[in-house]
C-alpha cells in the first residue's frame, strides 16, 4: 500500500471512530430521556416536606491523601463543618513523603487510638490509627503507600457506617453536600451510588475550610489544561440497565456508595480501581445478585453534590 493509501485508511478509521463514539453518546442520551422526564416530574414534590428529615443514613467520609500537605488542613476542616446529622471522617495518609501527617497531627491534635482494625480487605500495612482530640468524628489512618484504591480500601475497613463517601483530599465540600448526595438513597432504596459535580476552587478564598469568596482563577495555560478535566459537568442517570453508570467521568472525585457485600470482591479484583472501576464493579456484582436471587434492579443516581477542587495549577 502506498503512503497515500495509509493516510486515507487512517482518515477513514478516525472518521468511523468519531461517528461511532458520537452515535453512542446520542443513544445514551435518548435512553436517559425517560429518567429525565421522571426527574422533572419529581420537582412537583418540592413544595412538600423535604425528604431530608432526620431519616438520613450515617455516612463515612473517606479521604485518601498522598502528599497533600498544602491542602489537607483546609479540606479536612471543610469536612468537619458539613451540615449532616451523623457522619465520620476518615483521612487515609497513603504513605505521604511530605508533611501531610505532621500537618494533620498539628492541626487536629491527633492521638494514637487502640482501634480493633477489621481487615475486611487486604491492604498495605497500617502503621497507626489516630483520633482527633478536637473532633471526635475524625480518625486518621497512617499506612504504607499502596495507591488510591488501597487507601480507600483501608478507609472502608475502618468505616462504621452503611454509606461511604470517597472525597479527594484536595477537595472542599459545600456544607449541604452530604444532605444532597444522600437524597437519592432516601427517595429510592434501590440506589447504590450517587455523585456530584466538581468545580474549580482556584481563585476562590477558603478560610478555615469555608468557601468565603468565589472568584475567577488566574488564567494560565496550566489552568486551561486542567479545566478541561475539572470543568463543571452534568449527568443524568440511566437506571436499570447495568451497562453504564450515570456518574460522569468528572464526578468521580466524590461519590457516595452503599456498603455492599460485593464491594470487597470488586476492590480486591480491581486493585487499580478508581471510582469508575468501583462503580462498574458494583453494578456488575449487583447485576449478578439481581440475577441470582431475584432482587430488583439497583440504581445509580446523580445528585446535586457540588465539590470544589484544587486543580494543582
Amino acid at each position, binding site marked *: 500500500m502506498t503512503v497515500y493509501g495509509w493516510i486515507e485508511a487512517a482518515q477513514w478509521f478516525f472518521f468511523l471512530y468519531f461517528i461511532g463514539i458520537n452515535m453512542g453518546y446520542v443513544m445514551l442520551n435518548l435512553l436517559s430521556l425517560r429518567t429525565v422526564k421522571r426527574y422533572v416530574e419529581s420537582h412537583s414534590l418540592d413544595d*412538600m416536606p423535604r425528604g431530608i428529615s432526620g431519616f438520613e443514613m450515617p455516612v463515612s467520609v473517606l479521604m485518601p491523601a498522598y502528599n497533600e500537605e498544602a491542602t489537607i488542613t483546609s479540606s479536612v476542616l471543610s469536612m468537619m463543618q458539613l451540615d449532616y446529622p451523623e457522619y465520620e471522617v476518615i483521612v487515609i495518609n497513603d504513605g505521604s513523603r511530605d508533611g501531610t501527617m505532621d500537618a494533620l497531627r498539628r492541626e487536629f491534635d491527633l492521638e494514637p487510638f487502640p482501634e*480493633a482494625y477489621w481487615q*475486611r480487605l487486604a491492604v498495605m500495612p497500617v502503621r497507626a490509627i489516630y*483520633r482527633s482530640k478536637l473532633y471526635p468524628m475524625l480518625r486518621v489512618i497512617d499506612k504504607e503507600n499502596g495507591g488510591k484504591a488501597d487507601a480507600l480500601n483501608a478507609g472502608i475497613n475502618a468505616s462504621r457506617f452503611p454509606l461511604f463517601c470517597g472525597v479527594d483530599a484536595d477537595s472542599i465540600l459545600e456544607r449541604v453536600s452530604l444532605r444532597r448526595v444522600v437524597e437519592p438513597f432516601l427517595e429510592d432504596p434501590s440506589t447504590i451510588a450517587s455523585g456530584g459535580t466538581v468545580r474549580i476552587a482556584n481563585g476562590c478564598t477558603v478560610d478555615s475550610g469555608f468557601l468565603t469568596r468565589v472568584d475567577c482563577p488566574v488564567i494560565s495555560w496550566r489552568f486551561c489544561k486542567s479545566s478541561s478535566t475539572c470543568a463543571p459537568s452534568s449527568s443524568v442517570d440511566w437506571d436499570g440497565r447495568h451497562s453504564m453508570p450515570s456518574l460522569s467521568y468528572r464526578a468521580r472525585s466524590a461519590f457516595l456508595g452503599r456498603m455492599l457485600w460485593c464491594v470487597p470482591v470488586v476492590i480486591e479484583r480491581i486493585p487499580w480501581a478508581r471510582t469508575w472501576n468501583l462503580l462498574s464493579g458494583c453494578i456488575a456484582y449487583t447485576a449478578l445478585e439481581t440475577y441470582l436471587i431475584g432482587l430488583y434492579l439497583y440504581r445509580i443516581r446523580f445528585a446535586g453534590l457540588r465539590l470544589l477542587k484544587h486543580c494543582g495549577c
Partner: protein
Amino acid sequence: MLSLLAARALLDIDAPATLAWLVTVMAARDDWPMSRVVSMLREVGPDAVTLPLISAAEAAIRAEGGEEQVSRLLRMMDTAHIERVSPVAVKIAREIRNPELIAASLRMIRDPRGLDIVRAHARHESWFVRASAIQVLGRIGDSSDVALLTKLLSDSHWWVRYRSARALLTLPDTPIARLEQIRNALEDRFAADILGQAIAEARQI
C-alpha cells in the same frame, strides 16, 4: 406524584379523620418515597399518628403476606411515640421470621417486658439480628446480661463484637474499672481488642 400530593392535601384538611385509612395506604404504596411519607407524618405529629400506626401494624402482622407492609410501617413508627409502639415491636420480633424485619423491630423496643425475646435474638443466626439485639440489651438490659455480652465479644462478626463492647459500657453496674477487669480476664485477643477500643472511645467522650 399526584397521589402523594393528594395524600398531603388530605392530611392538611383533616388529619385525624383520614390518618387511619391513609396509614394503610402509605404502607401499601411502595412507590411513595419513604422519606416523604415520614416527613408528612412528622408534620402531623406523634400524638396523632401513633394509634393509627399501631392498628395498621397489628393488622399487617395478622395478614397473610403482610411483611412488606410491616417493613414500611416499622420505618413510619419513627414518627410515633416510641414507648407506645414498643409493644408492637416486641410482637413483631416474636411472630415474624424474616431476619431483616426482626432487626428493624428490635430497634424500636424500649420495654423491658421484651427482654426475653431480645436475649433470644442475641443468639440469632444472622449477624445483623444479633447486632441489633445487642444494641437493645445495652439500652434495656441489666447486670445479668454481662455474661452473655462478654461471650458475644468473641463472636465471629466484627460488628457483633463491637456492639457487645458498646452495650457492656451502657449496662448498669458496669463501670470502666470492672470492664478493665473483664478485659484482662479475656483469653480471646479479638475480644480484648474490641473491648479496649470501646473503653478508649468512652474515655474520650
